């Protein structure tokens, strides 16, 4: 029977769930103006963010070990809630402009955020599975939200491949359960370390890894990403390209470092190879893209490769902890920069869905210097050029890889970053050196999004130590 402490571990999630259900009903029964729904959504997210901050320092598990609340979950939850807030901010103007303003958008987004939060808190493979589905299913619907051909196509592609990857995760969990007689992460590790290594467990862990590799879009499981990111409504792409990625990596970290420490040790070369391959393929294919959404999609694949670098187990405990802290740091940097860049893309997208080619950015700097400056910051940050968060994040990542003895991996990271400069700089060149007549949409929420993320990208990078220390304390898993 649950104790009050059990509810305390899940308090933010429970509050947000209740709020979402209430909001769903309010929206269909009472609210006529959908801006009110947006404000209420943001309010719920902010409230939950406050509750999450109150959890800082606490560390418990609840509901018979089904969920856990520790520094890591608090860190990821706070990040996801900020992502949700940014997601609401970029969506508000966008869905109004594309004529698909319906209150369900916000409730679906909230359900997805709840799934992402549960993912970071789950301590049992059942919870991992439910959280995965809770975050994915609303995203399938959101991807098809605007109901034009591209959007529906993105929805069905995302759905079919998402369901396919779910199949891998579930079957992997079944095999792990068969090998260890438990789905609890701590019991799995206790069993695995007390008995001889079993083939069943290794195959199960590998299948789970494949399933999550689909979710975070690393090569060779990235094929769906460009199509889905391009076809989905841009506001949805902004939200899912960062939120789903953070959640996927959080689950990978939780499952593999808690339940399968020995197996993930054996997998280190495989993970390093996948990471290198992802960086190479993502960055090289991005060079030939002319559509900004597709370019950013390949860029997000490439960044999954950089982040995966942090999850290669480096053997030495201190180095691994540092590496994971750098990974968390990079997730924050990626979330801010990525949202900012997509906010600018949303501003330039026209009502009919054009304005998405790289050439549509020509001449932006002359007419709208502020937006152009913000976009420049985001592009520099994605390259890893100072003074931006992206540069600091990459520095930490490469340092960790070097300390772990993976010099080649770090080298590939540096070289692919140089390659990436080519296509990111093309946007900047278009904005500052070509003539054109772009007319970005102005909206208070959207303007706030790109200006705040741009300022944060620069300011935090000037004193990154603070954030890195936060990430380091978050690494200690319960």
């Amino acid at each position, binding site marked *: 029977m649950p104790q009050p402490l059990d509810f305390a571990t899940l308090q933010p999630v429970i509050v947000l769930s209740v709020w979402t259900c209430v909001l769903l009903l309010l929206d269909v029964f009472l609210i006529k103006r959908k801006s009110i729904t947006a404000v209420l959504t943001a309010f719920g997210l902010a409230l939950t963010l406050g509750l999450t901050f109150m959890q800082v320092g606490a560390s418990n598990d609840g509901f018979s070990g089904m969920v856990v609340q520790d520094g890591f979950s608090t860190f990821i939850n706070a990040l996801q809630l900020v992502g949700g807030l940014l997601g609401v901010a970029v969506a508000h103007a966008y869905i109004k402009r594309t004529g698909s303003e319906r209150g369900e958008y916000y409730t679906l987004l909230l359900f997805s955020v709840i799934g992402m939060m549960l993912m970071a808190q789950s301590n049992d493979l059942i919870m991992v599975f439910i959280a995965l589905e809770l975050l994915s299913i609303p995203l399938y619907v959101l991807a098809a939200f605007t109901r034009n*051909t*591209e959007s529906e*196509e993105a929805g069905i592609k995302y759905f079919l491949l998402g369901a396919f990857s779910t199949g891998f995760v579930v*079957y992997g969990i*079944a095999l792990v359960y068969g090998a260890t*007689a438990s789905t609890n992460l701590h019991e799995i590790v206790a069993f695995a370390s007390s008995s001889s290594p079993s083939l069943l467990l290794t195959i199960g862990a590998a299948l789970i890894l494949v399933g999550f590799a689909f979710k975070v879009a690393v090569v060779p499981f990235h094929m769906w990403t460009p199509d889905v990111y391009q076809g989905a409504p841009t506001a949805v792409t902004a939200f899912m390209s960062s939120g789903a990625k953070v959640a996927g990596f959080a689950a990978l970290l939780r499952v593999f470092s808690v339940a399968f420490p020995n197996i993930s040790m054996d997998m280190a070369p495989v993970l390093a190879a996948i990471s290198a391959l992802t960086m190479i393929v993502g960055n090289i294919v991005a060079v030939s893209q002319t559509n900004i959404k597709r370019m950013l999609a390949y860029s997000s694949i490439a960044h999954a490769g950089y982040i995966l670098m942090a999850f290669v187990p480096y053997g030495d405990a201190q180095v691994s902890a540092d590496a994971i802290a750098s990974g968390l740091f990079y997730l924050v940097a990626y979330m801010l920069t990525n949202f900012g860049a997509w906010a600018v893309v949303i501003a330039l997208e026209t009502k009919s869905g054009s304005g998405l080619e790289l050439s549509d950015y020509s001449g932006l700097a002359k007419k709208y210097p502020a937006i152009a400056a913000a976009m420049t910051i985001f592009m520099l940050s994605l390259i890893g050029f100072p003074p931006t968060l992206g540069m600091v994040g990459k520095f930490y990542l490469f340092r960790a890889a070097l300390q772990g003895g993976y010099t080649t991996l770090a080298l590939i990271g540096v070289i692919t970053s140089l390659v990436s400069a080519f296509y990111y700089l093309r946007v900047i060149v278009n904005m500052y050196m070509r003539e054109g007549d772009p007319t970005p949409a102005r909206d208070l929420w959207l303007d706030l999004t790109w200006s705040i993320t741009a300022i944060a990208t620069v300011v935090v990078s000037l004193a990154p130590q603070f954030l890195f220390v936060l990430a380091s304390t978050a690494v200690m898993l319960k």
Partner: protein
Amino acid sequence: MVKVDYYIILSAILFITGALGVLVRRNPLIIFMSVELMLNAANLAFVAFANMHNNLDGQIFVFFVMTVAAAEVAVGLALIVQIFKAKHSINVDDINSLKG
């Protein structure tokens, strides 16, 4: 008693059949049926293992897989119907307006 191994082998065969079905078939409905086959292969494995270990965790997991699969069906079929209305075809080779 049938040995647990046989159930696991059967479930592995079903899982691989499902995975291959997803990869080679071109009709989203059949792809989706293949996905369901993968999920139910996992269910079979769960139940067999639960019996072997003599604990209930596996059976509980099956409940959750079934309910979540129902939710996926609802979303997936809705998407397929929408696509069919728009295109009058649900061959995945015709779903190709996104390229680059």
